[in-house]
């Protein structure tokens, strides 16, 4: 009950006119920053912290601003994913899979509104989760050791297989390429430099921004060049911007399931949001029996990652608030913001600063609402991006992409690396290898290898550590389920077919 009292206070603070206005501005700025390829929530939040101070905003208002910017950036990243097929960050990769086909079919507005609604619901589910469970969930986050992470990664990779569709071997090769790319750079366990060939630019491995912008942005630029040659100069946009009741009904269960999945995965520090969106997408793809158009613009394929993502974004606040351990790069920057107010985030925060914690949680609610309030009317404006002719759009994308890389890694080496990756990505794309599999393999692979090796170092080589805790049992059960379910489905279908032809 005490909790609800604090939350009530939090809301009292968050709904003053100044704070509502701040939330609105925050979501707007966040959306615009997130929209630029290569710039994500880290930049948005980092950018806003000094401004909040320069304006002399009180702590709770600044926190609301930061939460609003964070969620705004997450949402803005989806816009470039859907409309331009350029995901700005890992968790937006799955969004492009069905989001961009929708945009190409002229349903960009509907895609954006569904994704706004999905994000909103996901954020809501997760915020409720944080409210009820936050102090308990700290235990869930620390229960994940190397062995548990490894099993989760095996599960995620099994889910990857669900993406295969009609080209299983190409998907497999693509994800293996991703896994291999993750090996580049210093090996965290032994300190050995792998595949760097003496280049210091590769010492820390391939930076994620470089890979994602190379694979998606550069290859998209080249694909757009082909289309230009064949006379296309811009995409068409349709009239309807809002999704209708029928579409809402189609995605309702997807959204609820993905929100829950996203929340629990988001709590895990590390790859939470990316894994959440990938797992949500692929499990929905497996479950969808009726009119399965996943990969070609299925609304469920858009709603699932979007909801999971935004739920995970809120979920990543849990380790930050309860353990003082950031769940993602963005929460790392937010942690820094807290210290500016002489607040040390950590296990004591719920006891020492309850108002602040619940104020932040309340501001997540508010920011979620603002996001919808602001974005639905602006969808019409955003879809205008599609109408920009290629001769203006492409140079813009190319320059912003270069800035995105240079901004986080101020060397021209990475610009060249991005171009090389882009050209290879374009070739892979031409031969129909799924680039999203490369990227997911890259993200999951590093975590998988390092955690397997850590687990085995802990156990001194005993493999039994991989099935020594309840969480690992649960993980393996999910893996088996993922493998057996499609087989079972196939068996039932065959059985059902038998009586039909006597």
């Amino acid at each position, binding site marked *: 009950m005490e909790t609800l009292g604090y939350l009530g206070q939090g809301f009292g603070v968050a709904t003053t006119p100044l704070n509502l206005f701040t939330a609105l501005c925050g979501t707007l700025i966040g959306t615009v920053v997130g929209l630029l390829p290569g710039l994500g929530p880290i930049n948005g939040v980092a950018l806003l912290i000094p401004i909040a101070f320069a304006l002399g905003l009180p702590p709770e208002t600044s926190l609301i601003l930061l939460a609003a910017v964070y969620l705004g950036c997450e949402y803005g990243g989806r816009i470039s994913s859907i409309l331009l097929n350029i995901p700005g960050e890992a968790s937006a990769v799955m969004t492009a899979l069905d989001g961009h086909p929708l945009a190409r079919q002229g349903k960009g507005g509907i895609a954006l509104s569904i994704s706004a609604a999905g994000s909103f619901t996901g954020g809501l589910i997760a915020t409720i989760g944080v409210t009820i469970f936050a102090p308990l969930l700290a235990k869930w986050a620390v229960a994940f050791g190397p062995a548990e992470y490894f099993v989760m990664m095996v599960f995620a990779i099994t889910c990857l297989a669900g993406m295969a569709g009609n080209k299983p071997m190409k998907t497999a090769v693509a994800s293996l390429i991703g896994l291999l790319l993750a090996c580049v750079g210093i090996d965290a366990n*032994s300190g050995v430099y792998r595949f760097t060939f003496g280049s210091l630019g590769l010492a820390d491995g391939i930076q994620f921004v470089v890979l994602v912008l190379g694979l998606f942005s550069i290859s998209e630029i080249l694909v757009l060049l082909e289309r230009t*040659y064949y006379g296309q100069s811009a995409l068409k946009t349709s009239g309807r911007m809002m999704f209708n009741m029928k579409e809402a009904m189609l995605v309702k269960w997807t959204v609820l399931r993905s929100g829950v999945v996203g929340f629990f995965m988001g709590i895990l520090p590390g790859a939470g949001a990316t894994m959440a969106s990938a797992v949500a997408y692929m499990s929905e793809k497996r479950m969808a029996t009726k009119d399965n158009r996943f990969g070609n613009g299925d609304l469920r394929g858009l709603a699932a990652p979007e909801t999971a993502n935004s739920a995970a974004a809120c979920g990543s606040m849990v380790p930050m608030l309860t353990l003082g351990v950031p769940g993602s790069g963005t929460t790392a920057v937010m942690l820094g913001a807290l210290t500016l107010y002489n607040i040390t985030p950590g296990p004591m925060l719920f006891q020492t600063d309850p108002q602040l914690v619940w104020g932040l949680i309340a501001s997540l609610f508010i920011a979620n609402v603002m996001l919808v309030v602001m974005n639905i009317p602006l969808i019409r404006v955003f879809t205008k991006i599609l109408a920009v002719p290629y001769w203006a759009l492409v140079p813009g994308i190319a320059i*912003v992409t270069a800035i995105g890389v240079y901004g986080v890694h101020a060397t021209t080496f990475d610009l060249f690396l991005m171009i090389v990756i882009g050209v290879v990505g374009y070739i892979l794309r031409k031969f129909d290898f799924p680039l999203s599999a490369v990227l997911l393999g890259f993200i999951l692979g590093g975590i998988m290898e390092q955690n397997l090796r850590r687990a085995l170092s802990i156990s*001194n080589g005993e493999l039994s550590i991989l099935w020594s805790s309840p969480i690992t049992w649960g993980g393996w059960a999910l893996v088996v389920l993922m493998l057996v379910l499609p087989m079972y489905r196939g068996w039932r279908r065959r059985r059902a077919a038998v009586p039909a032809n006597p």
Partner: protein
Amino acid sequence: MIYQRLFLVALLVVYAVLAYAATTYEAPFSYEPVGPRAFPLLLLILLAAGTVYLMIRPGQMAEENADTPLTGQVLGRLVLCVLALALFAFFFEKLGFIVSAFLFAIAMCRLYNGGWVTSVITGAVMSVAFYMLFDRVLDVPLPLGVLSGLGV
């Protein structure tokens, strides 16, 4: 099909080089049972197997290739585009962002069927506007290069 096979052969060559490199990876001394070599080598073996499989059974090609066949002319343009990107990267620090982006935007705009006048205008507007937006407003430092003497 033939191009895909050529590409796959090229991939196999790359795997071989990487595998050769990977065999030399050894920790100064090992605390852990697996070591830095096993995982990359396993991946390379799996990749080689997958690639060989694809050479034998290439599967279908994407539909998006059908309406935009890659002719020599398209290929030429693609090469030009990659060249423009590479030159942009090369001059990014040397000439500074504004000058290199200006020239790059003109080249790209021309490639994507923009007229000369529109290209020059686009280049001028974009280079200055993006510089102001990122360097000044968003606090992402960009190199000034040859313009650094202007003291802005």
